[in-house]
């Protein structure tokens, strides 16, 4: 624990109730409505992880953006600690204090123009976690918490001088800076090289444990969803088609779509099987 940490307060939950998001799609003169998210509800508890699994276009990222207040839900509500969340002013600032987000692409989520130090100073300042002379040590402490040591070296770097994994660690540090209680992680490792994914996920898990964070883990990767979360929600075209404890959903899928997804996921232990299947199929046709 560093000096920069505000005490972890509140034992409340982040509750998503019947969230709906419609987008207007224009093609030529026609306007039509596209329902990106349809009646999604769940409750995020401190220390727990919910995985939102689905393919692109399933609406999972839209849910994340609504929780991060980057999109406004068409209908439905988001409650924090039992109260509907505010969309403006100081109350919004307090919400951002509690709920933060890690974006998918660490190459895009850090401003190429600014240093790492700048990216971390701002949230510390905005949320009054540290100021003045305390700022620099707080930045360095944050960097060291995400295993970017020594902090002062990394603070001076700019995004393009770092690898993808290092950038994503900076993005995670930025999300932690305000002292958030809930973290929305939108495909946090899908843009990273495979050999470092596990390291970043383990880092997130460690921070979650230390801070008792509630994490919404958004992914298309069923394997990490299973191992990283307590509960899995499978989304398909805006709807939650299956939900349950993670092992249950993966090992004993009920919905057809979940089964399709599972069958499509690469599984090294099935090596050679696909070839044999195809050959058998062709032999059958011949």
């Amino acid at each position: 624990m560093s000096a920069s940490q505000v005490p972890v307060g509140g034992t409340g939950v982040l509750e998503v109730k019947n969230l709906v998001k419609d987008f207007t799609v224009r093609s030529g003169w026609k306007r039509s409505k596209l329902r990106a998210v349809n009646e999604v509800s769940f409750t995020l508890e401190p220390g727990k992880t919910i995985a939102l699994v689905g393919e692109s276009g399933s609406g999972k990222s839209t849910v994340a953006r609504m929780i991060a207040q980057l999109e406004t839900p068409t209908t439905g509500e988001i409650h924090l600690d039992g109260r509907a969340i505010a969309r403006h002013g100081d109350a919004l600032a307090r919400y951002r204090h509690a709920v933060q987000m890690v974006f998918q692409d660490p190459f895009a989520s850090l401003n190429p123009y600014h240093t790492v130090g700048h990216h971390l100073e701002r949230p510390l300042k905005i949320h009054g976690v540290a100021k003045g002379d305390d700022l620099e040590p707080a930045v360095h402490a944050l960097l060291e918490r995400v295993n970017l040591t020594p902090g002062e070296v990394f603070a001076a770097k700019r995004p393009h001088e770092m690898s993808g994994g290092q950038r994503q660690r900076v993005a995670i540090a930025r999300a932690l800076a305000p002292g958030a209680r809930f973290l929305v992680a939108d495909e946090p490792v899908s843009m990273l090289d495979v050999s470092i994914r596990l390291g970043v996920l383990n880092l997130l898990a460690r921070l979650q444990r230390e801070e008792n964070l509630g994490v919404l883990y958004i992914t298309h990767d069923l394997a990490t969803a299973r191992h990283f979360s307590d509960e899995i929600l499978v989304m398909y075209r805006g709807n939650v088609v299956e939900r349950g404890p993670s092992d249950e959903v993966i090992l004993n899928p009920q919905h057809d779509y979940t089964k399709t997804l599972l069958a499509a996921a690469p599984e090294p232990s099935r090596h050679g099987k696909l070839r044999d299947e195809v050959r058998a199929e062709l032999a059958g046709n011949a």
Partner: protein
Amino acid sequence: MTSEAVLTARNVSITYEVNPPVHAVKDVSLTLYRGEILGLAGESGCGKTTLAYGLNRLLKPPAVLRSGEVTFHDESGTDIDVVALSKEALRTFRWDKVSMVFQGAMNSLNPVISIRSQLHDVLITHRPQMRAQERDERAAELLTLVGVDPARLDSFAHELSGGMRQRVMIAMALALHPQVMIMDEPTTALDVVVQRGILREIMRLREQLGFAVIFITHDLPLLLEISDRIAVMLQGEIVELDEAKNIYERPQHPYTQKLLGSFPSLLGERGDFIRTGATS
């Protein structure tokens, strides 16, 4: 699968002539056998794409093939020294003998020309003696081959889904009966379900048409499922090359072991993946 080689690369080194020079591929030797799927695995910057481009002489400056031999063993029995090909000969060699499907290739379809004309373009360029009627038939045949309804011939790229566009790109790569297809992350941008369909298609076509595939990806589990052999690349060198089964069951090189350990098993035990974060 026969043990007859279709493409051999010997001691290939490729350097990016920047300051300081980057040795992207270091003394790589590789043999591709007729009809096999050879997986080329590695992470970003390991040189796998550069190597593939080098095999096809597609390198653009500042990348330069510094040394090494690339030989293509044609069906007719003649050997072609790819490195020595003239510009004109190279044009016929590519696409005719060795074709390529790029990462995100589905976005390289021309948006203002129908699928039909784009397939025709390939045929007109490389098979000028073909009559329009024949070209039409071939185009329809190609689409059927990759599992796209020939009625889609008159569609434009934006009217097709990402998966269909990638199938069209594969059809274009197949147009001239190549003996080798180099595929660079052909399914990375696609969703798993779509990806699975395309992989199945590639494997089926391979059985039917007998071309060899060099399949480049960072996704080792995927390679393990589809490849006959796998080459693991690290910092410009092939550190391990073996049959898929052996790579999975008895990985020799520490890097291969590390890569395999990076994928938590979907259905099995947790392995290295410890959610409590104790290892980090």
